[in-house]
């Protein structure tokens, strides 16, 4: 063992001057790299470069190998080492993980004084829930970008992360917090979607509190024009800056879409409705089986309105958490002429 270490030491001594010279050439930059990670709570949402994820994930194994005196560690983890020389974020994480892993050595499985811990989402800080959702969505983006870069398919993994973000967000009762938690959801879920035909109208759900009954007088009045009783649980949709242009209601298991003010060019025509996040949550059985191409059952009326079923589900809009799940899924809804 001693011999091995001596060899390693010689090798390090030989290259150390070159390393220092190279660092001087490359890294004499004036910035003071933040020692801590770019954190969502610190800076409001940036998660750093997506392509760090592969390296970051290797840090615990690399650190453990070093702590185990594994003389081959630097060879096995050579690409990670290259990355660490130039990446202050991962380097900082490396130092932290090294220290924290070091603290685990020699610990045996006896008493673990963790005390009584709260174990319910209801008592978990909403800020930490928002934070988790955003981290998961950002992680999903990192996974997708890395997969595209590596020409691999990690769609299922990214999808799983997004699902967990949606399910976690459903425990947030305040709409503003849910809005923040899922801010990047649509963008990430449709990151590499190939949309060839632009939508005639693109709607987004207006996040509401409770079971989805909004109480604004304008909304109430507009809701009446959409042909449904005021107070019935619904998901409200809007397009652009307009106040309200559609709703989704539930008739037993069936989710129904109601749209109004559709353009003249769509009158009398069938529509193809796309719910880009529709494949994220499985409890909805979409009409036609494809949430990206749901054909309206009737054409748009001459008054520019449309009411058509979208699919069936066991979720209930009257249940606050189910409502929040469905609302997240309808964060984007596109319609196109279907003929």
């Amino acid at each position: 063992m001693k011999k091995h270490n001596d060899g390693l030491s010689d090798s390090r001594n030989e290259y150390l001057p070159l390393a220092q010279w190279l660092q001087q050439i490359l890294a004499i930059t004036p910035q003071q790299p933040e020692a801590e990670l770019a954190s969502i709570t610190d800076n409001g949402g940036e998660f750093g470069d997506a392509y760090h994820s592969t390296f970051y994930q290797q840090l615990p194994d690399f650190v453990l190998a070093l702590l185990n005196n594994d003389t081959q560690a630097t060879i096995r983890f050579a690409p990670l080492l290259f990355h660490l020389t130039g990446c202050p974020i991962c380097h900082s994480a490396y130092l932290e993980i090294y220290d924290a892993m070091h603290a685990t050595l020699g610990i045996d499985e006896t008493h673990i004084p963790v005390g009584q811990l709260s174990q319910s989402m209801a008592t978990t800080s909403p800020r930490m829930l928002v934070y988790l959702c955003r981290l998961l969505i950002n992680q999903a983006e990192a996974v997708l970008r890395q997969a595209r870069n590596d020409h691999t398919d990690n769609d299922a993994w990214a999808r799983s992360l997004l699902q967990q973000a949606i399910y976690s967000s459903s425990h947030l009762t305040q709409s503003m917090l849910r809005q923040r938690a899922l801010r990047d959801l649509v963008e990430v879920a449709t990151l590499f979607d190939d949309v060839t035909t632009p939508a005639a109208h693109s709607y987004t759900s207006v996040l509401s509190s409770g079971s989805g009954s909004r109480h604004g007088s304008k909304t109430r009045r507009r809701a009446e024009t959409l042909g449904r009783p005021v107070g019935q649980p619904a998901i409200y949709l809007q397009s652009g800056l307009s106040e309200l242009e559609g709703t989704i209601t539930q008739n037993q298991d069936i989710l129904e879409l109601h749209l109004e003010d559709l353009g003249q060019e769509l009158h009398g025509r069938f529509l193809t409705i796309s719910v880009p996040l529709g494949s994220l949550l499985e409890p909805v059985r979409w009409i036609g089986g494809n949430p990206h191409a749901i054909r309206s059952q009737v054409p748009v009326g001459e008054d520019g309105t449309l009411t058509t079923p979208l699919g069936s589900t066991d979720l209930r809009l009257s249940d606050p958490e189910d409502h929040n799940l469905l609302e997240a899924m309808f964060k984007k809804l596109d319609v196109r002429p279907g003929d």
Partner: protein
Amino acid sequence: MPFTAHDLRYNLESSYPALCAYLQQRTKRYLGQFAYDAYEVDVVVGHVVEQLTRIQLLGGGDHAPETALDHLSNAQFYAFLNQSIKNKAIDRLRRRRLPTSTLAELEGSGNNEEDNDYLTTVVESIWGSPPFPTPEAAALQAVSQEELRMLLKRCIEELSNAPHQLQAVIKELDEVGAGDFLQELKEEFRAQLADLELSHLSQHKDHAHKKLRHCLQKSSTNLAVLIALRLTEYGEHITGTDEMSVEIRTLAKDSLSEREVQKGLKHLVRAGLLEWHGEEIIRFSSVQLKHLARFYDEGE
């Protein structure tokens, strides 16, 4: 046991509350007088949650590869979390410029509760010292690896059109003792450098460094490095000022989307190299230009 690493990987929704509760409990302990500052607690807890997410443990399921953390015993995993919290809390306290004595108290051994809590006890490695005196020493060894050496060699070779600059770099490498790498270069350029006089070395060295940095930036597949390079190449002087400017769409020419450009710009902002808040036109000073020309990062 409230939660395990396995729970966090496979049952995140049900185990996250317990994780948060545990991290908050430990954070409050280490934050001392800031224990009831909700922002500080969030920053510390959030930091560890972010780390676990990036390691791909949180919600990773069967998709994310297992790491050493998955193979820790429960007690070790809690010790890992505890130490991570402790380090971040100390970091926050330092930022708040607490007196050193308070920190010393925090980490001191006179606390009975601390004595009884073996999770916070520093434990010597049963395997002895690690092969590197510090983690940085391990990272430094990176340059001995072949890929970076080859890249560096290619960039030095590009100096062959300017023999004095090549000579300046080789002399510099000679002074720092670059071993067999230097021998390879000397061998390759023996004839070219044979009759050259040593003059104005400092000036040639500066030019050579500039070219080397440019070459390394050009060779990089890192998006932020590419954007830094384009800023230095496409930026135009604003008359009567010390500033340069360039439009996002100009940076997006040749194979980049505007979204990618914005992503690269954000990275440079985070690195402290640029001030940019989403404007279509990016402005930067000549000092920033100099720093951008030196920016280099690994990876894609």
